[in-house]
Every structure is written in C-alpha cells, then in structure tokens.
C-alpha cells in the first residue's frame, strides 16, 4: 500500500487533520454564530471595502447597542482577514466566500498553534507525549469553535504558544538569536491580539532577565552586557512590529495607546442607556463580593464549562457526558501533577537539576493567573461575562500541566502494551468526542 514502509511523520497527519476539521467548522457555522461575530466581521469588511484602517468610532462599524466597535483595540487578525477577503474576491465575491476567507485567519492561526504544541511537546517530553499535548489542545471543543469564526482569540493563543516555545528554546540555547527573534515575534503577536494575554508579555520580560542573571555563565559586567545586548535586540524587533499600531492609537485617540479609555468614553456617549459603563449593573455596583461572584453567581462553573465548550452566544452547550469526560481527564492530570510534585520535592537534587524548567513552569502559572485575574476583574467591574474564551490564553500552559500529570500516571503502568493502548485510546477518543460534537451538535443545530 501507498503508506507502507515510509517514515511518514504523525505530526503532519495531526496538523492536516486539525486544519481540515477547523475549516470544516468554519464553513459549517452560519454567519454570526460566534460571540459578537457580526461586530468583529465589520472590521475586516470595512478594511476590505475602503482599503484603510477604521477609527474605532466610525459610524459604519460602531454598534448601536454597545456604542463601540472592535476597532479601538488591536486588529491584526482582522487586517489579515481583510487581505484574505481581497484575494478571495478575485475568484468569488459571494457573502459566504468572503466570510469563509475572513474566518480562515482563525483556522490558520489554530493550525499553527497545533504545530507549535508539537514543538513545545518535543522540548518538554521528547517522546510520544508531544502528540497528547497537541491533541488535547487542538481538539478541545471550545478551541475548535474559536478556530472557526472571526475573532482575536485564536491569534492570542497562537502568540502564547510561540512565546512558551521560545521560553523553552531560549533557556535551552542560552537565548541564541533564533529564540530571541522567536520571542519577539510571539510578544508582538500577543501585543496586537488580546489584552487578556498580556500577562505572557510581562512574564517574558521577567523570565528573560532572571534567566540571564541566574543561568548565564558570564560574570559581573559581562552578564549585564549580554542582558542589555539581547534585550535591546528583542525590544527593537518588537517596536518595529507593533510600534505603528500604538503610535497610531496615541495620535487618533488623544494619547490613549491601548484604546480602552476612549472605547469607554464612546460607550458612555452612544451605548443603550442600561449598557453605558456608568449604568451597568456589575457585581461591584450590586455590592457583591468577588467570592460571591465566583461561587454563588456561578462564575467559576460557567467559565470552566465554556472553557471546555459552549458555542454560539453561550447558548449551545455540548453533551453532559462530554463535560464529565473532560472533568475526569483534568482531575487525572491534576492528580498526576501532585504525584510528580511530591516526587520532585522528595528528591532535592533532581529539583536543582531542573531549575530552568521550574522557572518556566512558575512563569506559566503566573501568566495564567494574570489571564484569569483579568477575566475576573472584567466581569466584576465592567461587564459580567463568565466566558471561558476570556481564559483561553491559558490553554497551552494548562494542557502542558495536564499532559505532564497524565504521563506521570501512565508511567506507573508496568505493561508497555497496555500503556500504548491506553495512550492510543485516550488520544483517539478525545478526537472522536470533538467529531461527535461536530456531527451531533453543530450540524443538527444549524441544519435541521
């Protein structure tokens, strides 16, 4: 047969399969079946039609209900969407073709994320578990959903994967040129994607400085020279890549480089009365405590379930047994992590050997907590939206820990054959669940 006896790499099959699945979802979901897709899609449509970047307050894209548009915040993915739409329009100008072209950015970003996950897995596991990491990230129902509609989240997740990969690469190679450039690209993508992922930028800076000061072989002033030289190179690349956007924002939004303050001002001016920032009934205004919001108002539960998979405008959940399976997988992973951690603590020598990895893990945890904190803060003070997609930038570190935990538990099994079969069944059943979500939830919902 055609595939016999060749050294075909499983990596390519996983990447190709993920790409086809994301694309399949993107052509299946009707227009505006993702959160605020109609508002988001207005940005690439504007760029496509007028050939220029929109002012966030442009009446064409400003939403009548919320009084704002997505044009105030970074719009890198929408710019690429507009480019894809332009290319597609040469062949086909139908609404469906243009929407598919705009969504294609999310498809591509998520496919590259899978590739990055395999690369991260290679550096962390250096064995077949790299595939588990790629599969549990790439075939999580919510991740597939994010890969299929017009949004900024997919590019944010991609940037996180690039950043983490370059953290690992940087510490391994003592921050060679490749890892420095890679980190710069990751940070630039992150800066131009989603504010919820900005914790990774902060952690990158800290990790970079700490790793050079602690692990660099140079002594005294030479160490600082290395830090300055490499730091300057990273900063220069980042400034070149992202500077234009923030300078533009500084000029057109009167010094507001992030655009958030201006967005709030316009929301106050044009939003529907009850949705103006000053009139919104946030948990803070209602006098609820944060713990009350997290537990009694169901923030944790809602965010967790929508992190696994709730589609459309948070109105289309997956089957209950699927949530149970994902919960079981997570609990198994956490149990494995606890086992691993207790083992590491009992062997101090081993801990010292692995300090570099420990440093990365700590930064992953900090960055994840910043993301979760920003989502909680937004829900508490601005608009109560307990949605897992706001926490999606933590998916890579979260799944890395789950993979480590599962690997630890599998290592406890002595039989090689059983271990292989379990691993195979885990990966395949995880993918099958995502296929069942597609065939038994997505298609019947929109086509019957």
């Amino acid at each position, binding site marked *: *047969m*055609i*595939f*016999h006896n*060749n*050294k*075909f*790499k*499983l990596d*390519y*099959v*996983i990447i*190709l*399969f993920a790409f*086809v*699945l994301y*694309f*399949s979802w993107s*052509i*299946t979901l009707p227009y505006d079946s993702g959160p605020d897709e109609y508002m988001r899609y207005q940005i690439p449509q504007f760029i496509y039609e007028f050939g220029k970047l929109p002012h966030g307050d442009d009446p064409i894209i400003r939403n009548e209900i919320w009084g704002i548009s997505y044009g105030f915040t970074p719009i890198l993915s929408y710019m690429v969407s507009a480019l894809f739409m332009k290319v597609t329009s040469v062949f086909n100008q139908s609404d469906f073709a243009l929407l598919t072209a705009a969504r294609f950015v999310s498809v591509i970003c998520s496919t590259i994320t899978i590739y990055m996950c395999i690369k991260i897995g290679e550096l962390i596991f250096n*064995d*077949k*578990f790299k*595939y588990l990491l790629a599969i549990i990230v790439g075939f999580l129902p919510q991740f597939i959903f994010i890969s299929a509609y017009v949004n900024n989240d997919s590019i944010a997740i991609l940037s996180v994967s690039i950043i983490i990969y370059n953290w690992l690469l940087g510490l391994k190679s003592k921050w060679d040129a490749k890892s420095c450039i890679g980190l710069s690209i990751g940070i630039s993508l992150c800066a131009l994607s989603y504010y919820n992922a900005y914790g990774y930028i902060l952690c990158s800076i800290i990790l970079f400085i700490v790793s050079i000061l602690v692990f660099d072989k140079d002594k005294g002033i030479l160490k600082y020279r290395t830090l300055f030289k490499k730091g300057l190179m990273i900063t220069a690349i980042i400034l070149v890549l992202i500077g234009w956007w923030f300078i533009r924002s500084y000029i057109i939004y009167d010094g507001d480089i992030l655009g958030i303050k201006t967005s709030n001002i316009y929301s106050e001016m044009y939003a529907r009365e009850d949705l103006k920032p000053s009139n919104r009934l946030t948990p803070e205004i209602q006098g609820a405590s944060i713990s009350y919001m997290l537990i009694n108002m169901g923030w944790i539960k809602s965010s967790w379930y929508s992190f696994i998979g709730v589609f459309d405008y948070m109105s289309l959940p997956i089957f209950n047994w699927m949530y149970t399976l994902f919960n079981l997988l997570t609990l198994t992973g956490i149990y494995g992590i606890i086992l691993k951690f207790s083992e590491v603590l009992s062997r101090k020598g081993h801990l010292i050997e692995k300090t570099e990895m420990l440093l990365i893990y700590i930064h992953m945890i900090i960055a994840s907590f910043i993301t979760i904190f920003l989502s909680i803060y937004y829900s508490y003070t601005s608009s109560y939206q307990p949605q897992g997609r706001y926490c999606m930038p933590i998916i890579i570190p979260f799944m890395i820990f789950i993979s480590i935990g599962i690997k630890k538990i*599998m*290592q406890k099994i002595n039989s*090689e*054959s059983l*271990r*292989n*079969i379990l*691993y*195979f*069944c885990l*990966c*395949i059943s995880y*993918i*099958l669940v995502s*296929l*069942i979500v*597609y*065939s*038994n939830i997505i*298609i*019947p919902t929109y*086509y*019957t």
Partner: protein
Amino acid sequence: MRIIKRMLIALFILSCSTLIIIFLIKDIIVNINIKKMEILDFSKFDTNDCEYIENNTFKITGDDPYFIIPVTYPDIKYLEVIVCNKNVFGVAIFYDNGFGFVPENSQMKTIRDGIVKFELHKTAYIKNLRIDFQNLKYNDTVTMNSIKINNFKQLNYNLLALALLINIIFLSINFTLLKNEFIRWRIIYVIILFILLYILDSIIINDISFYIKLVSFICIYLMNMLMYFMTKELSENDIS
C-alpha cells in the same frame, strides 16, 4: 515533500472514489425508494375548488383548484405525481412547515410524459402538503394514476447502510495498511470505526451542502490515517 505529495494523491483518490460510490449508491437508493413509495388514497384528500368524482378523477369547480394531502409523514422527502390528462401543464407543490403555504416553501414543475417528481430539499417538519394543478379551467377533469410519497425514515436506514459501507471501506484500508504485528490493535479499531460510523451517519442524514459533506468525509479519512500512523509510531517506540 514526496511523502506529503503521495498522501495528498492518496487522499484525493480515496475521496473521489468514495464520492462516486456515494452518488452512485444514492441514486440507486432514491430509485428504489421511489418504487417503494406509498400510494395515497385520493378520496381522503381535502380539496379546494375541485371535488373527487370517482376512479381517481377530480372535477374542477373553481379558479384556484388544489388539494391538501393530510400529512401523517413529517419526514416526507420524495413525491411523485402521475397524471393521465394531457391538458395539465404543470404541478406545483406547497409545503407548510408551520408558517402556512408560503411561496418560499414551494416548487413548480412542468409535467413530462405524464409524470412529475419532486424532491423536497428542506428536512423541516412538514405539517401539510398542497398540490396545485396549473392551466386548468372550470369543469375540466384531472385523472391521476397515482400520487406517491415516501417516508424519509425509510431512506435514513438506507443511508445508514451507506455509511456502513463507507466504513467497511475504511476498515479494509486500515486492515490492509496494518501488518500482522499490529493485530492486537484491531479490536480497538473495530470499536472506533463503529463510532466513526455513528458520526458519519449523523453527518449524512442532515441536509447540509455538498462542500460541508466533502470536508467532513475528508475529516473521517484523516481520522483513519491518524489512527494508522499513531498505531505505527506507538508500535515502533514505547511512550515512556
């Protein structure tokens, strides 16, 4: 690159061959189903501007002649009308899925050789079905040989059989690809392929576009390839 090229060619050949098989079989299934369709009893129809006389004949009594088929078949998919009169120009059908007999839910076809066939593209629940005759005047008569409708559920079983067939193809491909040393995996393969059958059936029975079905089929192929390569890789290297 050579491997990717080979893989793409294989994928293309597999997809094309399956699609051809699907369409050939679908055509056969449709024909079988039409033959198996249930013949309706004309005397039970509700009529407007026409009345049932005898021997499958209706007499036109007004300007807007039509009759309503009391649908006890919510999953109706195919409809065939055989008219004996040569003066009937065409037949229009209207289906009411809760919003009345609106033009959006209608089809009109010219009669050729006394026969007209409709395929209802919406799988929506149909409450009532109305048949209008075109080009008829007061006091004309229409004699029909038969009106047949088929139940979609009947077709559904055939599609299930089709899905099974596709999976048998997958199964044979995988079994051919796997050498004897992987025999221990086969029972898992069979279970997984039955789940794939379930997924495939869910995709087939829905009224989705050709492109979505095509991409979905490619997905299932890739799933099979993934299973094959993962098995191969795991058998060559232990995961620990």
